[in-house]
């Protein structure tokens, strides 16, 4: 990895591939190199601009008119290439179209709705901890980070019991597909047909149980907020982005708390810190590492001139550890004021399911900390590689009851 100044433009060109296995295995040294190279960099490997500092990432996220989403939030430019699936009506859309669909999902996943599902989510977390206490030694990814969201989210959506094993693989395809045409992406798409078929089927109104998030989306058709053909695609957004993200979020929190026993003790002494402990894990590990935008016009960003139709890669994870914004960014501190971190994004596209994620994280960490004295890592953690998501494939642990 080298940094060299490109003649004339003032934007440093870097020979860094943020989607290769070495980078994905340990992104932090490269994040630092990119952050220190300049406010805007150019990555020759994929011919894209990159922003890694907090200020620029935040600025790009909050200027959707200039840095648009409708040309895709991955490397592929929808103006030049056919998307691998019909574009999302919310993630891959701009105002005014986005404003309407966003309002529907905001309503379905609002703070008011969270109050209604809270007790159910908390009870399921307690049940999960009951099972873990029986096991004592288990895989914190499969048996906890995956098992818990799988025990509540598909039901909350109103999905049928059959076929749920497609959910995590489908999400994995979606997030791999934002990356460049590397092996991760190609393989994911090649194997996606059965997962896509399952998801398309599940998004239909007749397959969603009454009262669930999915049915609530379809009910918006009757209100005239969306059309009958739009509703299934909005349900698809929850299937794409509502499960694997929380799996990685909860996995990140457990991995942090297992690695930093002082923070675990702190949480055990004050359970009201559970929500903050989850939020700080989202900052610290940034389960969603990157997203792209595409410029709609020539723009100057922190002195760098970027032409129209250029892809800009935002390193959310690097911004969340930018020392210009955070004190001791490499420290996991559950009492940190995390407000403003970009782990859920920022601006009009900020994660619409953030309240669900926080609720799951909070009730799960509360249940764990109340009843478990110690979490010890007993084997080598294994990473799960994805072009966009950062998380583990396996985390062997042994717990000691409180």
């Amino acid at each position, binding site marked *: 990895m080298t940094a060299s100044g490109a003649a004339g433009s003032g934007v440093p060109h870097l020979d860094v591939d943020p989607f290769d296995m070495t980078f994905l295995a340990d992104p932090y040294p490269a994040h630092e190199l990119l952050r220190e190279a300049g406010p805007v960099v150019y990555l020759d490997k994929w011919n894209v601009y990159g922003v890694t500092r907090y200020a620029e990432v935040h600025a790009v996220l909050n200027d959707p008119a200039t840095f648009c989403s409708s040309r895709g939030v991955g490397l592929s430019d929808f103006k030049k290439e056919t998307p691998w699936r019909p574009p999302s009506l919310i993630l891959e859309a701009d105002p005014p179209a986005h404003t309407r669909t966003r309002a529907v999902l905001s309503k379905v996943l609002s703070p008011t709705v969270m109050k209604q599902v809270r007790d159910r989510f908390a009870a399921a977390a307690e049940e999960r901890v009951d099972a873990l206490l029986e096991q004592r030694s288990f895989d914190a990814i499969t048996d906890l980070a995956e098992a818990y969201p799988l025990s509540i989210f598909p039901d909350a959506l109103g999905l049928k019991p059959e076929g749920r094993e497609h959910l995590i693989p489908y999400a994995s395809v979606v997030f791999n597909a934002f990356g460049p045409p590397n092996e991760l992406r190609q393989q994911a798409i090649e194997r996606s047909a059965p997962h896509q078929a399952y998801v398309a089927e599940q998004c239909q109104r007749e397959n969603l149980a009454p009262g669930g998030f999915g049915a609530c989306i379809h009910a918006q058709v009757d209100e005239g907020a969306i059309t009958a053909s739009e509703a299934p695609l909005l349900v698809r957004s929850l299937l794409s982005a509502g499960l694997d993200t929380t799996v990685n979020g909860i996995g990140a929190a457990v991995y942090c708390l297992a690695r930093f026993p002082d923070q675990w003790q702190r949480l055990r002494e004050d359970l009201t810190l559970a929500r903050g402990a989850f939020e700080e894990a989202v900052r610290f590990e940034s389960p969603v590492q990157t997203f792209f935008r595409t410029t709609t016009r020539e723009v100057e960003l922190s002195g760098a001139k970027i032409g129209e139709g250029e892809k800009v890669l935002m390193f959310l994870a690097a911004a969340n550890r930018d020392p210009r914004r955070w004190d001791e960014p490499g420290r996991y501190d559950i009492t940190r004021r995390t*407000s403003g971190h970009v782990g859920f994004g920022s601006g009009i596209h900020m994660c619409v399911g953030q309240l669900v994620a926080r609720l799951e994280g909070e009730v799960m960490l509360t249940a764990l900390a109340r009843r478990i004295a110690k979490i010890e890592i007993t084997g080598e953690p294994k990473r799960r590689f994805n072009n966009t998501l950062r998380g583990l494939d396996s985390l062997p642990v042994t717990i000691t009851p409180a």
Partner: protein
Amino acid sequence: MPAIMFIHADGRPDRVETSGGESAMQAATRHGIDGILAECGGNAMCATCHVYVDESWLTRLPEMADDEDALLDGTAAERRPSSRLSCQIKITPELDGLVLRLPERQV
């Protein structure tokens, strides 16, 4: 620059100097007012920067938008007629001396 007053749930006052164009929420988080959580960072999505506006100031604030109104239905502490989200209150010179009371809880 205008200054605003936060009154904590226990009655303790905290005077905060604002800087140009920021919201009451931003002023609060910059000064470490712990009664404001602002989990979403000011994007009007989470309802964790809830405040009760002092009666005398209520009519002097700009009207709330529909999304703020909807979010206020989901606040952790009781919603009252004086409830607002502090991320949606932009501090202008006319709001110098604004008094905002903090609820008992934000989540």
